């Protein structure tokens, strides 16, 4: 049972040993890996130029968080609160106070007291805009750059461009995703590049915190891993025979790869998701001891562990940001749930010297109107909103772009989703015009024929 198994000597082991200083071992293993790269679509690839960010943690907020109550301070909106706006409902000042934080003096709402401590790491983009003010389309736009056609997601493009550093874990993980598999799909890219969902969606608040980052069926109750390897080799032979008969069948290739990955994941995933060995201080840092923050905190901590283990693209999801009414209470509740965990994540990454090459991004699919809906709500607004990035090659303590006086439309240094995508790829060392995939006789890219790199935010 303990016989030496060459297959168990994965790149993961090689990387672990290399970081421990056994360079020569690592060298031969990496040389082998390079050969394998031609065969293995997930093998690490050399980017187009030196990357600033090696991995991404994307904090995706579903529902359209209000920017004028969080990261886009609009004093004139408060001054004009209650005034009629032509063709719109009355303006509604933010019920939340903004204060300046850090040396940079970034204005951040009182809703994020912990995150505000990291003001000097945050790069706020206040001039985001997107095409449509409808949730499904805007979500798809944010994730794939196209709301009309089925296109590969940002994570899939990233994995396609860079491969992954740990072949025992999916290179693209989305934790507790809401519905809409297209948002982590691979479309015409090979199936192996699609995101692997882990854990149950937390839309229903009765999903326990520990289920939000868990994976089922991770262990066979009867077979040793040697026996299972033999079985999987047989399944592989069946699948390869089918692939040969079918000549060209990307989904079958995807199935073959998914078994191989699943087999390796059995050892690696429990370890990565097992946060019991984290110190009490770390757990506290992520807010695990508090019922309000435990769910999202667990996701953030799992994200850090995956980032550390070499996962290329990690997405964390948080829902219920669609505050048409009850803005004050609901927005407060949402922010309470994520503030400590995100601040903890940034702190932890920094302490481990990982923030410098980890790009952390927080965004919703659009923002909300400065105009009131009812007395205590805001409607969808795609014409101007905010998101932020931190770490991996972006300027901290920066407030980039601006909306108009009241926060309705982006007016200065506008950043469209395509521009944002182009910039993300740039930070990863990928040229968004050169990262293409040939399909149906055409070279496709994430940014289609658009996208300007937002140079002003590059560190």
């Amino acid at each position, binding site marked *: *049972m303990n016989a030496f198994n060459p297959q168990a000597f994965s790149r993961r082991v090689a990387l672990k040993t290399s970081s421990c200083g056994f360079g020569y071992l690592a060298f031969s293993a990496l040389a082998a890996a390079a050969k394998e790269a031609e065969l293995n679509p997930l093998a690490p690839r050399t980017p187009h130029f030196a990357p600033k960010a090696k991995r991404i943690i994307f904090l995706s907020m579903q529902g359209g968080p209000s920017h004028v109550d969080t990261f886009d301070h609009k004093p004139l909106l408060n001054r004009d609160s209650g005034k*009629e706006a032509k063709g719109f*409902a*009355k303006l509604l000042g933010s019920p939340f106070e903004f204060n300046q934080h850090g040396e940079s003096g970034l204005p951040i709402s009182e809703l994020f007291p912990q995150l505000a401590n990291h003001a000097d790491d945050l790069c706020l983009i206040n001039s985001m805009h997107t095409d449509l003010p*409808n949730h499904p389309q805007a979500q798809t736009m944010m994730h794939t750059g196209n709301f*009309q056609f089925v296109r590969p997601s940002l994570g899939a493009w990233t994995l396609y461009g860079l491969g992954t550093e740990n072949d025992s874990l*999916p290179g693209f993980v989305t934790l507790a995703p809401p*519905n809409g*598999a*297209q948002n982590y*799909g691979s479309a015409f890219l090979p199936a192996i590049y*699609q*995101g*692997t*969902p882990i854990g149950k969606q937390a*839309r*229903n608040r*009765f999903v326990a915190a520990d289920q939000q980052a868990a*994976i*089922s*069926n*991770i*262990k*066979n*109750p*009867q*077979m*040793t891993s*040697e*026996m299972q390897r*033999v*079985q*999987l*080799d*047989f*399944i592989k*032979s*069946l*699948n390869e*025979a*089918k692939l040969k008969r*079918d*000549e*060209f*069948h990307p*989904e*079958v290739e995807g*199935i*073959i790869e*998914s*078994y191989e*990955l*699943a*087999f390796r994941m059995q050892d690696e995933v429990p370890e990565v998701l097992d946060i019991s060995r984290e110190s009490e201080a770390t757990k506290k840092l992520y807010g695990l001891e508090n019922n309000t923050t435990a769910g999202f905190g667990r996701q953030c901590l799992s994200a850090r562990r995956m980032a550390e283990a070499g996962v290329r693209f990690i997405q964390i999801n948080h829902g219920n940001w669609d505050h048409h009414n009850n803005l004050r209470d609901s927005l407060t509740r949402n922010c309470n749930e994520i503030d400590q965990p995100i601040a903890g994540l940034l702190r932890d990454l920094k302490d481990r010297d990982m923030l410098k090459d980890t790009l952390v991004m927080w965004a919703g699919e659009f923002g909300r109107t400065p105009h009131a809906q*009812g*007395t205590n709500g805001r*409607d969808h607004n795609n014409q101007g909103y905010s998101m932020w990035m931190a770490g991996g090659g972006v300027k901290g303590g920066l407030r980039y772009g601006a909306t108009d006086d009241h926060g309705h439309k982006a007016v200065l240094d506008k950043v469209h989703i395509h521009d944002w995508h182009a910039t993300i790829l740039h930070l990863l060392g990928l040229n968004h015009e050169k990262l293409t995939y040939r*399909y*149906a*006789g055409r070279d496709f890219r994430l940014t289609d024929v658009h996208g300007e790199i937002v140079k002003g935010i590059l560190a």
Partner: protein
Amino acid sequence: MMPVLNRTLLLTTCLLPALIGQSGLTQEMIMNSTAPKYSDEQINFFESKIRPALVKHCYKCHSEDGDKIKGGLLLDTREMSLVGGDTGPAVVPGDLDESLLYAAILYTDSDLEMPPKYKLDDGVIADFRTWIEMGAPDPRERKSKSGAPAEYTNTIDIEAGRDHWAYQLPSASSEPSPEAGSWSLNEIDTFIAKGRETAGLTAAGDANPLTLVRRLYFDLIGLPPGQEEVEAFVAGYGADPKTTIAKTVDTLLAKEQFGERWGRHWLDVARYGESSGKEINATFPHAWRYRDYVIDAFNADKPFDEFVQEQIAGDLLEAESPEEKAEHLIATSFLAIGTKGLNEVNSRQFRFDLADEQLDTTSQAFLATTVACARCHDHKFDPIPMGDYYSMAGIFLSSETLYGTAEALQSRRTTELVSLPATSKAGTETKSLGEMIEMTYQMTLIEERLTELTDKARDLRQSGDADGARAMLNQILRARNQVGIQEQLIKSYDDDGNPIAFTMGVQDRDEPFDSQILIRGEESNPTEERAPRGFLQVIQTNNQSAIGTHESGRRQLAEWITSPENPLTARVYANRVWGWLIGEGLVTSVDNFGTTGEKPSHPELLDYLALTLIDSSWSTKDLIREIVTSRTYRMSSNYDETQFEKDPENRLLWRANRKRLDAESLRDATLAVSQHLDLSRPEGSMVSQVGDGFVGRNIQETQLNTPSNHRSVYLPIVRGLVPESLSLFDFSDPSLLSGKREVTTVPSQALYLMNSDFAINSAQAMAEYLVKEQKLKGPELAKAAFYLCYSRPPTQEEGIHTRAYIERFLEVAKAENLSVEKSRYMALTTFCQSLISSAEFRYLN
């Protein structure tokens, strides 16, 4: 703290939420009434005594400008005081007993004490008494946000909008019937051949009969063919393909399993779910009746137009027997099974949201039109003004939706259910006399406990121990929830212990009304203008009959939708059927035929199918028959590089699409090959067994998702808790209408097939069947196993791999010191598991 305790009890106890129409005053009467003329004296009394008291004691929690609107009650206008809040009208002019406001300020009912923190002076209470008795004179008018009444102006040019292809009537094209000896077998093929030829593509050859029989079985009944059936088909096909296919299709269409397969397709569109979803997630123990109705409708080949009419307006249709009446009533569950925010505080908001969900589902399911986009503004892409939205919304607002659910903390929106004629089956078993007594006794115990707890809390509060009272809150709430659940349980049996048959559904309100147009969709921001109940202006049909003042208009809505002059309905449904068979719709955006949707790949074919559907009296089976007997359906899915370069997505159908089995077929096929599949229909559903309650609170996943060998369509579909065997393989989200499933390939699927109890148990059962029942071993066993799983014998290469696998596995098992017997058993079971886990099991060529 006390106020919280009090308010919670107020919201959750005492009266059932007063439905509009039950209080004697209807929404319509209130909304339409203008302020009566009051005498100066009366007005003076109001202004000097009542208004100041309301402002001082009530507005903080019960006015538009207050901190919070509690209990859904607004007291700052005459109109809203009459409408009342969650528990009923606050003020009924002249009637002290019916006026909840008066009951509350009296402080005699501990569940209903207002203001929460103190009792009003006797003098003030007397003033309110006088005021109500004199007819509650109240000059306050409903405020409009901007002072002047809001106005709405249509910005949409309907006439220009009619140019969009989908709003023009389907037209018969002059495509000739296929010539003898040509590739085409029927009209469908002539359209497909034309599209292909225009693009310079050539057709793949026919699929081999082994592939074809498997395709037919899965597409029509969602199950694999047995070995005998395969052999008969292959033999017949060699002699006469046409007749063999036709006969097989007829056999399959006549099977009960056809309705289970095709009914499930429709359940995706109907966003079928057995709980309310969202935060409260209360169970719907009666939803399964709709599931069975849909399955039966497909089996009976109910004409699609009738199917639509029954789902929208079954309660209004003539029935010839109690059974038919029951069927019609159950059909309207379509409108009642959607997700609901049962914790919504504002009752008006809740009603608008409910109508919106119904309107959205109805318009997308039948018309593939996103009417709901016009709730807050004119539709941004399609010719649908806001006025049209509110015309349709009025129809749903004038209907009462009955979905049951237990009362509990935060679950504020319970309703009655529709009782079915006595002949209907109930779905749960009869209770013995002993059980009935026990059930009632339990109720007494729970109620006593609740009284005990509330009394105790009250005593503590009065003795100044606020913390002690607060500490009891959770206990009280739990007891309160139990009362609600138990009440619901008792209500579902008659005195003899026979379960009473209920269904979810809709009924017309006594006083239907036209909806106001709400500016930006805000219930608090209505215009003066009411949108007369009606349909979309962009689609005019000749059968549009007027909606009478005493009917909701659902009957007319159903007629309008199913009119042959409605250009959408037949097209949308024919396109769905095409997509479910071919793997992709002619219009790929199957739920959106608007301008943001996709255009049809073969517009003439789509029109032909729509017209054929109407001509065949809307027969689904005829439509399916026509499609699957075409040459197009019969094509092989073989790859061809040249064709692929030109048309990689196969939009023009140069070959058959390769299809991944959907989650249900995959699970059912696994059960079938393991010989575990139970083809009987279970009585009710796990949800009806578990009954009323709240998922994640008193109902846990383990109670619902128990192992079952029934077909997947009968598994409990609880929102947020879809069984893993389905959710991992892209089952549609039961909260959302969906005419098309996604296909993902992720390692969690592989892990499920490698390690789950279901996969392992099924494989063991399959192995035991082959060994014990079929008495097979060696190559004969392997051959039978391949046949069972793939409807074909193993290739020579596969035979070699199989032998090698068994040998290799035994070696490894020996090294692990497993007994010979155990090793052999596992080698065999894991071999079976491997066949089930492979790509071929999951893909139809």
